[in-house]
């Protein structure tokens, strides 16, 4: 069975809500029924086959070709299966994703994987602001699963994050890990200002020293036993995080945010 492929015919001016095209919603539908589904496109509703050329039949393996940054809500609440996006993705990629896997070859917009619950999301390009965060007004961001970003991420990555891993090979913008309740964010590149702002618990694992902050207290240099186990869990990824040279267990530990409950930690690699 070949992957169910949606190839974008032309780039619409208005944004498209792609949330109906997730594996679990298409599982019991015939090809013609899928083609007849409607997608919200700005103020209009358009048939799937009006926007996309369709091929294949495996609803648990969806490929979106020619994707661009106005295709929003791809993989919303995905529950099993795999979605491969060739190109960029719009906002709310993998919103509330429950399980399964999403791969994007390009960049993604705001709120990617926000309130994600489980599963794996891989972004080959850059991610916008609020990666793995909570929706505005909500108190709980990402609750589980793993996000891998090979490029850079915007501001507020992991805002209100509750559990799971966000792995960033590039740089992170300002307020990375802000208001985190738990979970792990690993950044191989540089981090911006206000790192871990108001974080309560959780771990920010850094390859490079962050900007100095009065809100974090130095707890000294340590060899931590959990780090080898964490890095072993990254071995299965197609990422720099899986490379043996990426792993370390000796870190400088900073505790904070001391203006909050201060049980969070920033661990900075000691090379």
């Amino acid at each position, binding site marked *: 069975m070949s992957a169910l492929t949606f190839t974008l015919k032309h780039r619409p001016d208005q944004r498209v809500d792609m949330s109906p095209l997730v594996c679990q919603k298409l599982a019991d539908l015939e090809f013609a029924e899928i083609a007849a589904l409607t997608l919200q496109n700005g103020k209009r509703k358009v048939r799937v086959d009006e926007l996309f050329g369709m091929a294949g039949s495996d609803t648990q393996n969806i490929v979106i070709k020619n994707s661009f940054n106005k295709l929003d809500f791809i993989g919303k609440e995905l529950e099993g299966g795999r979605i491969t996006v060739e190109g960029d993705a719009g906002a709310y990629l993998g919103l509330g994703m429950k399980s399964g896997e999403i791969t994007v070859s390009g960049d993604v917009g705001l709120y990617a994987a926000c309130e994600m619950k489980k599963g794996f999301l891989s972004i080959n390009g850059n991610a916008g602001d609020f990666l793995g965060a909570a929706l505005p007004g909500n108190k709980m961001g990402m609750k*589980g699963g793993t996000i891998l970003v090979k490029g850079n991420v915007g501001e507020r990555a992991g805002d209100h994050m509750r*559990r*799971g891993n966000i792995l960033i090979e590039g740089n992170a913008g300002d307020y990375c890990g802000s208001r985190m309740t*738990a979970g*792990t964010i690993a950044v191989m590149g540089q981090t911006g200002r206000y790192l871990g702002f108001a974080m309560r*618990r959780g*771990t920010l694992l850094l390859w490079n020293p962050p900007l100095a902050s009065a809100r974090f207290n130095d707890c000294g240099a*340590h*060899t*931590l*036993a*959990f780090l*080898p*186990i*964490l890095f*072993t*869990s990254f071995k299965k990824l197609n990422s720099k995080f899986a490379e043996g040279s990426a792993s370390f267990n000796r870190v400088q530990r900073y505790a904070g945010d001391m203006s909050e409950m201060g*049980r969070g*930690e920033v661990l900075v690699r000691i090379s």
Partner: protein
Amino acid sequence: MIINGVTIDATFAEAFPMKATRAIITAQNEKWAMISAQAMTGFATSVIACGCEAGIERVLEPSETPDGRPGVSIMIFAMGGKGLAKQLETRAGQCVLTSPTSALFAGIDGGTRIALGKNLRYFGDGFQVSKLIDGKRYWRIPVMDGEFLTEATTAQVDAVGGGNFLVLAESQPQALAACEAAIEEMRKIPNVIMPFPGGVVRSGSKVGSKYASLGASTNDAFCPTLKGMTQTDLSPEIESVMEIVIDGLSKEDIDKAMRVGIQAVCDLGATAGIKRISAGNYGGKLGPFHFHLQEIMA
């Protein structure tokens, strides 16, 4: 049946169902992993008075442990799940948490999950940190030498306890030498422990006692000094009897351990003073698992 001059009695050992778990203790080096493991499995020879039976299964290479450090695999057996959980937690708290550089991990999957370090986290007084890695929850508990890392839970599985055989010899040193040889071979078998001191017990028991308060008492039929006083099971030349007790995850595991153990004893043979191999047979009163010696050695 006679092997190398040693008579294998036409009898069977009786064993009973138990609950078991396995944990992995790692440390900076094998020495300290072993120290912690010995402490954790100490005073755990018999459920009769210790609450559990525990032992060291084997030493683990760094490549076999979750954190890549030298480790030791230990197993604990108890009559019920509740008792097992209590023993595991108490021993983990007093013997591994306290031991320098140690870390503690689950050593078995499946079954019912029971707390390993789940409640030890409160020792962290609010400074403990939880990490969920690949679906397994770990606790990082700050301690004076750094951090104590422990997995939250391990599994409790059905198991078999009380497999045994008796070595009947012409002298005490010969009985002990034969048991030592047996234990050396049996320790190579996975999924089993021999919980008594050094794996050998010299005070085998029978079910019941003349004293109402005791459920078990000395196995007088196998006590050489009582040969003229009781319904003895010993021939005149037997001067010493020792027993090896085996707990295992399954009947098959105990079968294997008994086979290699008895074989090691028989390899020494009659010329080394070993006359007979027998077993703790209580007429079916002790448990539903029966290990027929001659079938095992066939």
